[in-house]
């Protein structure tokens, strides 16, 4: 019987709750889900310009243009076959201002369905913007916002970032394509380990320099090419690594999952050959001599000979050792380029040598971590490369 009044009370309360309504309730179809964002240098779009001329805008500095890729629900419906013509499944819409959040909320006065960021997958930052602004400033909103997940990836575009969110393929969503491309690490060395917002924050907070994947776009086509170098001290973009330099860096750090090395015969430059990397391992040892640091890097790799051109006769074929030497030389050249770029041109450590010092010489690290980039650029890097061709595919050698 003790239950009864309690139950009644509970029912009354429940009913009250039902009456007062469902504060946070918002049906999914009444929301605009955006999946990608491109941040460009402030450049007012044509529509925005017209709106402003009619006197809509608050005075602000046009620092950033944010382009949102919104899933358009009309066409993602599969039940409606008839309307599935050349209509794109997404809408790109842009806003300009000096506060990312303000730009976002601006959309509330421009779209009937409020935008939500739960499903944002990727942020593309244009190189120009990243050169001019600190990354942590630009991304601050993304970190604070409770909708946007820290699992969202960040890439840099050397050109206009909004162009990377366009496509000519009907039906595809460019943001998803970008995310999908980040998964191709087992096919090419040009895709570096993806950097999510949460990983990025680790870099930003610790003040280490790092690289972000660079993406190029041309007429709706996009390509990962090289990487953008972010200096830890300023948290701004200071330059790019070319594809070759990036490959060198990947070899140096042994972070590749799969890819190839293409080289030419010493004697015959028309004779190309390709090595398909199966495994890559790089052991970095730091040696401290007072404040002077040096690194021994030992790179080992195994793989298969996958392509060999122009072998005139079977007797003229180079020995396996020779082939290995050719490939090793190529890799060394790549690594040399990368080290040169890091130590001499940009003077930053983006290969994670600092973390080896931190782990192996924690006390020393405390004293050098402040200006690690300059300490790094003066330290010596010795490296050895050992490639091993273990198989020849379906051919005997």
């Amino acid at each position: 019987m003790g239950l009864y009044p309690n139950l009644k009370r509970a029912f009354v309360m429940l009913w009250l709750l039902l009456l007062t309504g469902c504060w946070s309730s918002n049906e999914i179809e009444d929301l605009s889900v955006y999946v990608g964002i491109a941040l460009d240098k402030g450049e007012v779009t044509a529509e925005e310009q017209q709106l402003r001329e009619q006197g809509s805008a608050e005075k602000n500095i046009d620092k950033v243009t944010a382009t949102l890729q919104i899933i358009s629900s009309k066409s993602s419906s599969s039940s409606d076959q008839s309307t599935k013509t050349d209509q794109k499944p997404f809408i790109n819409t842009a806003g300009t201002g000096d506060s990312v959040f303000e730009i976002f909320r601006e959309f509330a006065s421009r779209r009937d369905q409020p935008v939500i960021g739960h499903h944002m997958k990727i942020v593309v930052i244009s190189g120009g913007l990243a050169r001019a602004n600190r990354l942590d400033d630009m991304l601050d909103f993304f970190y604070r916002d409770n909708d946007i997940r820290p699992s969202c990836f960040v890439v840099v575009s050397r050109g206009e970032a909004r162009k990377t969110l366009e496509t000519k393929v009907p039906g595809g969503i460019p943001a998803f394509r970008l995310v999908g491309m980040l998964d191709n690490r087992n096919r090419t060395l040009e895709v570096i380990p993806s950097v999510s917002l949460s990983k990025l924050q680790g870099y930003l907070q610790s003040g280490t320099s790092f690289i972000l994947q660079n993406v190029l776009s041309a007429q709706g086509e996009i390509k990962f090419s090289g990487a953008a170098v972010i200096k830890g001290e300023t948290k701004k973009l200071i330059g790019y690594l070319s594809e070759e330099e990036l490959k060198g860096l990947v070899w140096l750090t042994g972070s590749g999952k799969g890819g190839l090395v293409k080289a030419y015969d010493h004697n015959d430059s028309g004779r190309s050959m390709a090595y398909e990397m199966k495994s890559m391992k790089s052991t970095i040892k730091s040696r401290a001599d007072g404040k002077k640091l040096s690194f021994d890097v030992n790179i080992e790799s195994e793989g298969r000979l996958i392509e060999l051109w122009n072998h005139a006769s079977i007797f003229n074929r180079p020995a396996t050792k020779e082939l290995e030497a050719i490939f090793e030389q190529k890799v060394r050249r790549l690594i040399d380029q990368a080290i040169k770029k890091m130590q001499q041109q940009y003077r930053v450590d983006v290969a994670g040598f600092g973390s080896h010092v931190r782990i192996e010489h924690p006390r020393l690290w405390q004293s050098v971590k402040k200006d690690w980039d300059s300490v790094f650029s003066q330290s010596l890097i010795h490296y050895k490369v050992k490639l091993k061709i273990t198989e020849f595919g379906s051919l005997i050698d």
Partner: protein
Amino acid sequence: MDENDYITPAQVAVVIINAMLGAGILTLPRTTVNAAHTPDVWLSIMVGGFVIILFGMVLVRLGLRYRGQTFYQYVSRITGRWIGAFLSLVVIVYFMLVASFEVRALSEVTGLYLLEGTPSWAIIMPFLWVGGYLIRGGVSALARLCEVILPITGIIFFLTMFLSFGIFDIHNMRPVLGLGMTPVLKGIEPALLSFIGFETIIVLQAFMKKPEKAAKSVIAGILIPTAFYVTTVVMVIGALTVDGVVTKTWPTMDLIRSFELSGLIFERFESFLLVIWIMQIYSTFTITCYASALGIAQLTGRNLKSVITVLLPVIYILSMAPHSLKDLNKLGDMLGLTALCLFGLLPLLLLILSKWKAGKKDGTVS
């Protein structure tokens, strides 16, 4: 006390585990790393666990001297009526504050990740009713509930933590003891705060048929949360790095939000973490609320059920008191420190006093 209202040693352990796992699990990586600035904080947590076991042992000793009695009942026998009543009151208020702290933390996190825009009273009040309904069933119902939700919590927790292995980087955990023991020691204090909850033994032991088994229960009840905490801290720091952790309000949530596993039906797993976390807050809340209500009931000689009815609104008001998250964190730290004094140092004094008194009595008798 109801004759049938007793709990087994295993239940005591489970209740202590549930009382400990609460708001702390979401913030622990930040608080400890903030103090230590090294990835070694998992060591701090382990050391903290052992310290807490020592504290717990003292409490058990004390309880063993007064079988079948709660702290509220025996404290006045040790210190005399007025001091005893005062100490009981402090403990009651402490439990009340812990309960309201947990509730407030719940409303903050729920408001942030699940129900943005819902007023906090709408989040807190149903929670209080449900909790109140449970504790009217007494300590055995409480213990059984803990037994139901602990396996759920454990399985889901370790599963989600395991899933985050994809973004775990062992380099972030190294070097171990790179800067020596000092940072580890610095990390112990915040680590200790996350262990508050062990003090519920002062109430629980009275309901045991064999109170001498309480020691084992307390040890188990502290070691298992230690495993939870160490796992949390290792996974969070391993994924977010030491520097990444310090800026996050709820680092453990951010860990789970930092990865997506497409292919697994759910892809994102924060809902799981939130669900078990809410359950843990619920158990912590009900346990502390019960401890507080029992204290009032025993001090004033009133019916437990009517005390609960009065207590719930008080807890609601208290939970609304902190103005911001910062205040809330401060309250949490303050509660932790109070707990350490109240249940780390005070029991030792009481134990000595009680032994001395008993010795004196023996002396006069013989």
